C-alpha cells in the first residue's frame, strides 16, 4: 500500500548499521490560510456545501477527488514548503542544514522529529531520536525546579528512572542547588535558562536534532562549546543542526545541505555549500522586488521597490556608519483602494543571520490609520549604527492585523566604515556590531587627606 519497498530494500542491503537518517522524496504542503488562523465552523459549513460541486468538477477534469487539494500544482493558497528532499546522514556524522528564512529547514526538522507529517515521502531513523527545537519546553512557572526537571525530562523523552539517576547532576550543572524547591517563576532569567539547558543536556539520544540553540550565549562561550561538540560526533552520535550562524555550523558539521524555497540545492562539504549560500543571499536580493514571488501574506499591500538614500550621495546601496540614512519602501495596494490600519517593519540581519535591530511603525507608535492605494514609506535613521559589513533586510507589513506582505532578504545594504562619533576619525576597528552614541564624563574624587 505504501510505496517504499524499494527504499526498504536498499537500506536493508547496504547500510543497516551505518546510516542514521534516511530521507527520501520528502514533501510538505501548507495551506496558507491554515498557517495563520484556525477555521471557524461557518467556513467549513460553506466548504462542505461547495465540496460536492468541486468534486464533480475535478472528476470531469480527470482528477481523483480524494487527492490532497491541488497537490503537485499548488494554487495561490497552497505552497510546498518542502519539495522532494532526499539525503542520508551516516552514523556519527554532523550535518548542517542551511538556507534563507522560510527555506523549509524548520519544517524538515519538524518532520524528522515527528511533530508534523509529510505530504509525501519517507523517512527512516536508526536509533533513539532526541529533538531540541526549544529548550525548556513544558516548563511551568508555578512548579518548582525539581518538579520542572521531572516534567520537562519526561516531555523530551527521558524515563523517570533516568531522571532519578541524573537528577543531582542536572541540578549541579544548572547551579541551582539552593533553589531546587523554589517555583521557577521566582528564578532569575539566567537560572531559568541554565536549568532548561541542563535538562536538555542530559538527554542522550543517538540522533540529535537541534534548531538554533546556538543563538544564545556570548561568543566566547559558544566557541568553547562548539569545540567540544565536535568531540560528540566522534563518539558516534549523529547530529542534525539548523542554524543561521555559519560559524557554528562550520565548526560542528563536516557536511551541509542547502535548502532554498523548499528544494535542496546543494549537499556536500561545508565550505563550498556555505559559499553557495552566501552567493544566494546576495543574488536573491538583486532580483527586483516587484518580481519576487517568495513572499508571504494576503497581498492587500505589496512592496514593489526599495532603496536607501544618503544625504551626500543620493540613492545608493552602500551607506557609511554614522551618516543619516533614509530608507524608502514603495508599495502598491492589492485592489487599488485605500488601506486602513497599516503597520510596516524593516528588520536588519547581519551575515550570520542574526537580527541586529528593527525599524517598526508600531515601536515608534506610528502605525498608519489610513494610506492611499500606492505610495512610499520612508524611515529616517539618524547616525546609522551598524558597523561595516553586509546586511540583509526584510520588508514586513500588516494591514488590519493580518499579514499583508513579507519579503525576506528584500534588499542587501552594504555598510562601510564611517565617522560615527564625529571625531574626524573613521570607526574602523569595530568593537561589536553596532555603534552607540555616548558621552564620557570625568568626576574627580577628593582624597581623604584634603577632607
Amino acid at each position, binding site marked *: 500500500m505504501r510505496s517504499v519497498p524499494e527504499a526498504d530494500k536498499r537500506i536493508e542491503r547496504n547500510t543497516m548499521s551505518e546510516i542514521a537518517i534516511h530521507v527520501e522524496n520528502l514533501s510538505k504542503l501548507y495551506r496558507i490560510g491554515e498557517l495563520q488562523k484556525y477555521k471557524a465552523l461557518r467556513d467549513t459549513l460553506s466548504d462542505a456545501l461547495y465540496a460536492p460541486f468541486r468534486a464533480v468538477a475535478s472528476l470531469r477534469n480527470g482528477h481523483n477527488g480524494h487527492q490532497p487539494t491541488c497537490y503537485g500544482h499548488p494554487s495561490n493558497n497552497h505552497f510546498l514548503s518542502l519539495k522532494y528532499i532526499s539525503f542520508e546522514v551516516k552514523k556519527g556524522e554532523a550535518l548542517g542544514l542551511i538556507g534563507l528564512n522560510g527555506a523549509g529547514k524548520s519544517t524538515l526538522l519538524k518532520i524528522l*522529529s515527528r511533530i508534523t507529517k509529510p505530504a509525501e515521502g519517507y523517512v527512516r531513523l536508526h536509533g533513539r531520536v532526541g529533538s531540541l527545537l526549544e529548550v525548556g519546553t*513544558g516548563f511551568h512557572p508555578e512548579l518548582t525546579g525539581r518538579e520542572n526537571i521531572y516534567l520537562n525530562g519526561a*516531555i523530551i523523552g527521558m524515563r523517570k528512572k533516568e531522571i532519578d539517576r541524573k537528577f543531582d547532576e542536572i541540578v549541579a550543572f544548572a547551579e541551582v542547588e539552593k533553589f531546587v524547591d523554589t517555583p521557577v517563576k521566582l528564578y532569575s532569567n539566567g537560572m531559568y535558562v541554565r536549568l532548561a539547558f541542563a535538562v536538555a543536556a542530559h538527554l542522550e539520544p543517538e540522533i540529535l536534532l537541534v534548531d538554533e540553540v546556538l543563538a544564545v550565549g556570548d561568543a566566547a562561550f559558544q566557541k568553547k562549546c562548539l569545540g567540544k561538540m565536535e568531540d560528540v560526533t566522534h563518539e558516534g552520535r549523529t547530529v542534525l543542526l539548523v542554524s543561521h550562524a555559519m560559524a557554528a555550523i562550520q565548526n560542528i558539521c563536516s557536511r551541509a545541505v542547502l535548502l532554498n524555497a523548499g528544494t535542496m540545492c546543494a549537499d556536500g562539504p561545508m565550505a563550498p555549500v556555505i559559499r553557495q549560500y552566501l552567493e544566494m543571499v546576495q543574488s536573491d536580493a538583486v532580483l527586483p522586488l516587484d518580481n519576487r514571488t517568495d513572499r508571504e501574506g494576503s497581498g492587500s499591500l505589496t512592496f514593489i521597490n526599495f532603496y536607501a538614500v544618503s544625504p551626500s550621495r543620493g540613492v545608493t546601496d552602500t551607506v557609511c556608519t554614522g551618516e543619516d540614512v533614509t530608507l524608502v519602501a514603495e508599495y502598491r495596494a492589492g485592489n487599488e483602494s485605500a488601506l486602513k490600519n497599516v503597520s510596516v517593519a524593516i528588520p536588519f540581519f547581519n551575515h550570520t543571520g542574526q537580527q541586529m535591530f528593527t525599524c517598526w511603525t508600531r515601536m515608534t507608535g506610528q502605525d498608519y490609520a489610513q494610506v492611499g492605494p500606492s505610495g512610499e514609506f520612508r524611515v529616517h535613521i539618524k547616525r546609522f549604527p551598524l558597523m561595516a559589513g553586509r546586511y540583509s533586510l526584510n520588508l514586513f507589513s500588516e494591514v488590519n492585523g493580518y499579514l499583508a506582505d513579507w519579503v525576506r532578504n528584500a534588499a542587501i545594504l552594504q555598510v562601510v566604515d564611517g565617522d560615527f562619533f564625529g571625531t574626524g576619525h573613521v570607526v574602523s576597528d569595530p568593537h561589536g556590531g553596532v555603534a552607540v552614541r555616548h558621552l564620557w564624563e570625568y568626576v574627580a574624587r577628593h582624597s581623604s587627606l584634603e577632607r
Partner: protein
Amino acid sequence: MMLLEGLLRSRNFGGDTEEIPPLEIYPASGWRFLDVRELWNYRELVYFLAWREIKVRYKQTAIGVAWAVLQPLAMMVIFTVFLGKLAKIPSEGVPYPLFAYAALLPWQLFSRTITESTNSLVADQRLITRVYFPRIIVPISTTIAAVVDFVIAAGLLLVLMLIYGVVPGAAAVWLPAFVLLMIVTALGVGFWLSALNVEYRDVAYTIPFLNQFWFFLTPVVYPSSLVPERWQVLYGLNPMVGVVEGFRWALLGVGKGPSPMLAVSILIAVALVISGIIWFQRREQNFVDALGSGGR
C-alpha cells in the same frame, strides 16, 4: 551552550540502549485506531502531565485541595435549600443532601473533564508544536487529574452517609463498574471536544451552554423516575443518566438498577469513546498545522 557541554559529558552513551527497531515516518494515512503499545510507552508522560495539572491547579490557593470538596458541597447546599426544601423535589426517600451529592460527584467530574479537555490541546500548544508524543495523552491526563479530585470529593460522601446513617447494600459491589462508565463517558466526550476545538474554536464557546444543557438532561437534582416510563430508554441516550442512576442505586439503594435505560447509556458511552478515539487519531495529524507554531 550548556546543552552542548552536557552532551559531551554524557559518557555512558549507548549504555542503556537496547537494539531498537528503526523509526519510520510516512505521510498522514487516514483512519487508524489507537496504537496501544505506543501509548503504553508514553505512560510516564501521561502520569507527569496529570500530576502537573493537579499540582498547578492548587498552587497559590489558600485552601488548596479542599476546593475539590468545597465545590460539590456548596452546590449540594444550594440544591438542598432551593430544590429540596423550597421546591420540594422528590428524592426517592433518601435525604435530599445525600441524594444530590451522590449525583453531583460524577457530574462534577464529567463537567470538569469536558471543560478542561476542550481547552487542553490549545492550552498545550507550545508543547504540541515542539515535541512529539501521542496527542491523545493530553485529554487522557486531563481526565485522570479530574478523577483525583473525584476521589477526594468522594470522601465527603462517606461522611454524609455516616451522618445520615445510610448503609449501602450488596449493590455497592457494582460501584467500580459505574465509576468506569463515568470515566469512559468523560473520556469519550473529551476526545471529541478537544480534537474539534483545535480546528473550530467555536467549541470552546459552546461549553458553558453545553454544560448547563447537559446538567438538566441528567438526573442530578431530580430523580429519573420523574421522566415518563415510555421516554426512559430515550432518556438513557445521555450516558450520564446511566452513570448518575448507577451511583444512586449502588450507594443509596434507590432507583431501578440494571434496566434498558442503563444498557442504552452503556452502549452510547462505549460508542462515544471508540468514535472519539478514531476521530481524534484522524485529526491528530493536522493539529500542529492548525495550531501553528508560535512564530517559529
